């Protein structure tokens, strides 16, 4: 009879077994390896690393496998694992101007020192399903859309220095100057300190970098449609490898500890100037681990929109509202709170049930009283 609240433990165990079975799928189909995910679903791995705030391809690939391809679930796994890792300190700032470039484009200048490098991009593909990929054992490259491509040594052409486009504008004083804080160690960490508003830009950029791609995409899009317009130009988008340097306390000088693949977007935006400042371009900044181009463009739009208050612009769109954007950008927080509606709420609902019944009884009584009064009045 009273089974509804008993049996939780047995149910959980059985549910976990079912989940493991579903994850594996049909056992006659060969199992995905973590390496296959890393190599062939690399953009999924990049997104999980970026929003999971942990640069580790193998762990991200494992998380994707364990999460059955649900990227938010995979990001969640990575975040939970990341919590347990010790922090040794902060690296030196990475120098994206010294990036080993694989892709680099500017929408503001036809040609730039170092040239436009298209790199690996979907941009000019025709979105036609490539049925050759469905054939088993595609062997080798498999990218049958450009069969002539062959093997490319990407680095061959790219020895030339590639200064960042916004730095070119900076020489003329046409774009707002941005300087790092005086103390390099003083970078905030929103995974180690709670946010309090208004926030500094380091925390804002961290928040946006970890933020949900879809959320930032929609917010960035909304600025283009008039909710906080910022007249953006993609000054530069670059993808490539940068060296990470760290200064151990007992050494006292920086040593290179590894290499990261990063995507960076520098947005250049119009600014009419104010009473104090002459007209000049302003910036929005986006950065991700791996290759997350959509994410960094959207992030740069939102970063710029959030500068509105500091620049004295009217705050009228959701993307310009710091508390709104930053409190709702994290998909792990969002999915947790949205999905927690699945948890039992019997007690609260019971309280509401009582209240609604009470209010209905009262209303019914009042109606009955009114009806009686009307009868009495009619009789009089």
């Amino acid at each position, binding site marked *: *009879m*009273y089974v*509804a*609240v*008993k*049996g*939780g*433990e047995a*149910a*959980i165990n059985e549910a976990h077994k079912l989940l493991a079975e579903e994850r594996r799928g049909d056992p006659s189909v060969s199992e995905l390896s973590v390496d296959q995910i890393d190599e062939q679903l690399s953009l999924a791995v990049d997104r999980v690393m970026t929003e999971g705030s942990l640069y*580790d391809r*193998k*762990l991200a690939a*494992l998380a994707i496998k364990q999460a059955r391809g649900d990227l938010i679930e995979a990001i*969640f796994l990575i*975040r*939970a694992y*990341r*919590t*347990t*890792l*010790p922090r040794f300190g902060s690296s030196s700032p990475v120098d994206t101007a010294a990036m080993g470039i694989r892709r680099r484009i500017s929408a503001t200048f036809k040609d730039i020192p170092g040239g436009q490098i298209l790199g690996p991009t979907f941009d000019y593909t025709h979105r036609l399903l490539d049925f050759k990929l469905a054939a088993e054992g595609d062997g080798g490259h498999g990218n049958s859309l450009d069969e002539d491509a062959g093997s490319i040594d990407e680095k061959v052409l790219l020895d030339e220095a590639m200064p960042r486009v916004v730095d070119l504008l900076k020489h003329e004083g046409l774009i707002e100057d941005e300087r790092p804080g005086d103390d390099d160690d003083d970078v905030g960490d929103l*995974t*180690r*300190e*709670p*946010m*309090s*508003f*208004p926030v500094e830009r380091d925390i804002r950029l961290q928040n946006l970098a970890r933020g949900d791609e879809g959320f930032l995409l929609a917010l960035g899009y909304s600025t283009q449609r008039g909710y906080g317009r910022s007249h953006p130009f993609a000054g530069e988008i670059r993808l490539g490898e940068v060296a990470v340097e760290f200064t151990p306390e007992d050494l006292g000088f920086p040593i290179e500890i590894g290499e990261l693949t990063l995507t960076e977007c520098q947005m250049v935006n119009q600014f009419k100037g104010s009473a104090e400042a002459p007209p000049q371009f302003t910036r929005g900044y986006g950065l991700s681990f791996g290759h997350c181009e959509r994410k960094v463009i959207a992030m740069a739009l939102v970063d710029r929109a959030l500068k509105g208050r500091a620049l004295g612009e009217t705050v009228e769109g959701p993307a310009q509202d710091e*508390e709104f954007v930053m*409190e709702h950008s994290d998909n*792990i*927080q969002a*999915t*947790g*709170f*949205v*999905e*927690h509606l699945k*948890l*039992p*709420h*019997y*007690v*609260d609902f*019971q*309280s*509401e*049930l*009582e*209240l609604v019944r009470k*209010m209905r009884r*009262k209303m019914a009584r009042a109606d009955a009283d009114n009806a009686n009064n009307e009868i009495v009045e009619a009789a009089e």
Partner: protein
Amino acid sequence: MTQAAQQAAIPDEQAEIDAGAGPDPNYNFAYLDEQTKRMIRRAMLKAVAIPGYQVPFASREMPMPYGWGTGGVQVTASIIGPDDVLKVIDQGADDTTNAVSIRQFFERTTDVETTTRTEDASIIQTRHRIPEKALSEDQILVYQVPIPEPLRFLEPRESETRKMHALGEYGLMHVKLYEDIATHGHIATTYAYPVKVNGHYIMDPSPTPKFDNPKMHRMPALQLFGAGREKRIYAIPPHTAVYSLDFEDHPFDVQQWEQPCEICGATDTFLDEVVTDDRGGRMFVCSDTDHCTRDQEAAE
């Protein structure tokens, strides 16, 4: 990190931990590292020193989702020691799935003794209820809190609500309660009913039914509240005055039922309604399953 070090750093998720075999060696005791626990304890000390004040803390990402009790889990993880006895309830029951899951988490990471008996527990983590049995001075009640800010639905901005608390500017809340009375003839809040702690801060008791509010007043046990997603900790020290907001002519009252619990016959407990068929059949039973079972045993 080298490949080998990376491999070693991946804990074996499938490691079978036998009961009594000690805590999972892949993680620190109670999952969180000691520095994090110290940070959380500092926030708790501040919270105890300023009853009802929401202390921001650097909430960690936990291996269960936000909304599942990450705040309560972090609080418990920071205070639990090997000699503690833990009880976990959700909706008053020890055997609801999420209570089971959190209890298993601590069994795995601390190997402490767990119990369903309210008086045997030194730490009770709860979602949505306060046990019916009165708690004692050597117990700690840890609440899981979804939205710690009692003013949130009146003012969505944190920067504003913090100011309102600092200035004791609670007019908005009183107006809301007054509007309830003007519209409905009574205050139409049945759970998460706001309280004033130690005559100062207005506090959200978490979504416990208002039936439980009087239990908070001068409770001998320490009450700790953890909100993981919102990164806030607050506390009610033992024996602190906790008043549910009301008006002189509309005093605070609690829910009452017309029938006793159908299992144990209690008339002074919070009852859950269990639908028994699709023809309107229903029964009312205690939400606190430990209390209910024990009453039953005592009767037999």
